[in-house]
């Protein structure tokens, strides 16, 4: 009798342990007291290349070939790529650059300086590789977004920036007669875009 009670009691006590719950293994971003930097995640040894991650395509990964900004996109820009670019732009770029790229994002209302507008002559002329490089490595007070945005998404953003630049710099002569009629019909041609920009700034 006494033996049964002890066994049941012991089993009950074992049931209270959390060994399975808190397993002695590292999870992503866990702390470790084994390594001097306190991190369980180890930086790759210099020169290590993960399978399928050999970045031989310099144009794709750096936006530069032989130190020069690439002038063409490394893959065809389809409607899907533009949609993806718009989506990613809204997440990562609008807080500072605003929805239309005028440099009037939310941060301006918080006391930060306006980032440069995309609609300057210099940036309209800039090579796609240059814009890609700025996103990847940062520029001025803009931090690098290379670690945050995967490479193809960065190119999609570059493509969408081109769309934005185009949207703010259309000559009347480039429009079809129908579109010209539309423009004439509305008193303020740029109204919808302006509205969008304001929305971005009022966050």
């Amino acid at each position, binding site marked *: 009798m006494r033996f049964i009670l002890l066994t049941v009691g012991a089993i009950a006590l074992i049931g209270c342990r959390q060994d399975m719950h808190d397993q002695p*293994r590292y999870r992503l971003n866990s702390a470790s007291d084994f390594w001097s930097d306190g991190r369980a995640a180890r930086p790759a040894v210099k020169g290590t290349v993960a399978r399928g991650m050999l970045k031989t395509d310099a144009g794709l990964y750096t936006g530069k070939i032989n130190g020069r900004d690439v002038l063409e996109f490394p893959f065809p820009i389809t409607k899907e790529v533009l949609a993806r670019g718009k989506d990613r732009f809204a997440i990562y770029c609008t807080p500072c650059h605003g929805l239309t790229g005028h440099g009037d994002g939310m941060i301006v209302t918080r006391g930060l300086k306006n980032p440069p507008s995309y609609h300057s002559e210099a940036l309209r002329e800039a090579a796609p590789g240059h814009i890609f490089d700025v996103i990847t490595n940062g520029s001025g007070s803009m931090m690098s977004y290379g670690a945050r945005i995967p490479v193809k998404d960065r190119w999609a953003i570059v493509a969408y920036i081109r769309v934005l630049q185009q949207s703010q710099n259309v000559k009347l002569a480039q429009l079809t007669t129908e579109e010209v009629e539309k423009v004439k019909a509305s008193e303020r041609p740029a109204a919808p875009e302006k509205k969008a920009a304001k929305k971005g700034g009022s966050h």
Partner: protein
Amino acid sequence: MYTGLGPRVRWLMSQIFSPSTNPLSKISIVAVALLAGGGGLALWEVNSSPFVSRANYPFEQPVPFSHKHHVAGLGLDCRYCHTTVERSAFAGMPATETCMSCHSMIWTNAPMLEPVRQSWATGKSLEWNRVHDLPGFVYFNHSIHVNKGVGCSECHGPVDQMPLMYQANTLYMTWCLECHRNPEMRVRPRDKVFDMKYKHPENQAELGAKLVAEYKIQKLTDCYTCHR
């Protein structure tokens, strides 16, 4: 009368309880049942309380980061910081670089941001306290949920209203299964996944069933779905 028994045996055979204890024995039958039930209920309550489930109380953090300010106030998208939520099991904790994207220019002297600046200067990680701590025997993948139309707020609650992060649900298996058995009551259109203000429409059952079919959502309730 046979008197061959010794005094010790005679004592053993005497009545232990007098007739006056009869009501007690009847009461004790009911009392034992009540105590067992009450004890069970108490255990259940303790087990589903924040004390055990860790739900509904904010965690101390090295920097009192406010999701309310950054999401509802400033309009940042979840993915601005949790960059890998759509493509990996782990939603991703922002690197110090992400904080410094703005805080190298604004609130640069704020005392509460001192740990961030320290981390930036020394390269040492900020040590946040994990709020959503699943048991080691549970496999969970953010990306599949997000890509199948399960919104952030479905599990994490109104994060855009949390000055300090807390766990809005128990994360118990029974809670997981509630949705795994009836996903049509919880899914939303993919473009609303990151919408913190999203409310399920009145015809959720109808819309949900449509989305479950469209997104090919399975009712995964096998043990090995999560325990592998």
